[in-house]
């Protein structure tokens, strides 16, 4: 089983997974667990899963990927599926799986930018709301 493990790399705030082999069902399940474990160990804020080498995604792999994304987001990490092949995308939609709610990016660069932007926005939003609170408080003070 050790040889079957798909490597998960850490890069700053994010994790990078590149699936280079045809996934059988148990491998997909293992990968799901490994990713979640690494998220919680490293407190990563995002995961890029590169599937550009995958020649097919059936309902099992599709569901496992979508589930992993949902599970990761409960651990406060966003998952982005990167580099899906056109033939795979067409087949998945015809199969009836649109992976709604799963974020996608055309390549690793775009995926990384997307994660960074979301991370910035998050801190920015927090800062905004704190500032708002302060200014409201200031307004209250001035009214007094």
């Amino acid at each position: 089983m050790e040889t079957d493990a798909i490597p998960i790399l850490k890069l700053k705030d994010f994790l990078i997974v590149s699936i280079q082999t045809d996934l059988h069902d148990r491998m997909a399940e293992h990968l799901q667990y490994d990713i979640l474990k690494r998220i919680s160990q490293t407190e990563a804020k995002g995961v890029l899963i590169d599937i550009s080498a995958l020649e097919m995604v059936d309902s099992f792999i599709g569901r496992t990927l979508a589930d992993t994304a949902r599970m990761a987001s409960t651990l406060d990490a966003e998952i982005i599926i990167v580099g899906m092949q056109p033939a795979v995308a067409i087949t998945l939609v015809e199969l009836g799986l649109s992976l709604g709610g799963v974020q996608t990016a055309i390549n690793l660069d775009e995926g990384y930018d997307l994660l960074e932007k979301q991370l910035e926005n998050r801190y920015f939003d927090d800062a905004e709301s704190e500032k708002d609170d302060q200014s409201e408080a200031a307004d209250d003070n001035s009214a007094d």
Partner: protein
Amino acid sequence: MAESKKSQNKDINNLDKRIEAIEEILAAAAGGDFSAEIPIVMEEADVLTSVETGINILISDLGDEVVQSNKRADQLQEKLDLIKKQRQAIEELSTPIIKMWDKVLVLPLIGTLDTRRSQKLTESLLTEIALTQSKVTILDITGVPTVDSAVANHLLKTVASVKLLGAECVVTGIRPEVAQTIVHLGVDLTGVETLSNLSEGLKWAFNRLNMRIVEEE
């Protein structure tokens, strides 16, 4: 009495051979060879001669007819090939994928969208997106005369597969009557970005790419 009996005998004498000849001719015709004829000796004409002559005429007519019919079939096949070629030409002509800007593709849809065409369109669009690594795709349906639930379904599938690839998709050029039918048919377009026209679509695309168009002062 004696003479008539004699002629009947003569007929019978030849009968086996002549029937054999008829069988051979018919077998040849059944095999597609209409060139052979039953040999007829007019001087010795009898009851069977008219039958033999009739068979000869029928087979020769049949041969002509088969030649004609083959010719017609060839012509028909030629026409079918022409139609097939024209259909391919039309399909190619009507589905240009335009690179509007860096990372922005436009697909102006013209004509009706059936399953076959929409599958081909989606395939070439997705291939182009992957090739150019585009981020935004504008599907302009100004040239689509009617959007029924089947066409809407095709559009939804195209949009869904573009999204899976990691690109964004906006549908533009929805005419008022198309908007009416979409709502009347109860087609659910939530989750699909729609805008009135192509220039709005382009503005949207620039916005997604964090770009702005500024008028010079």
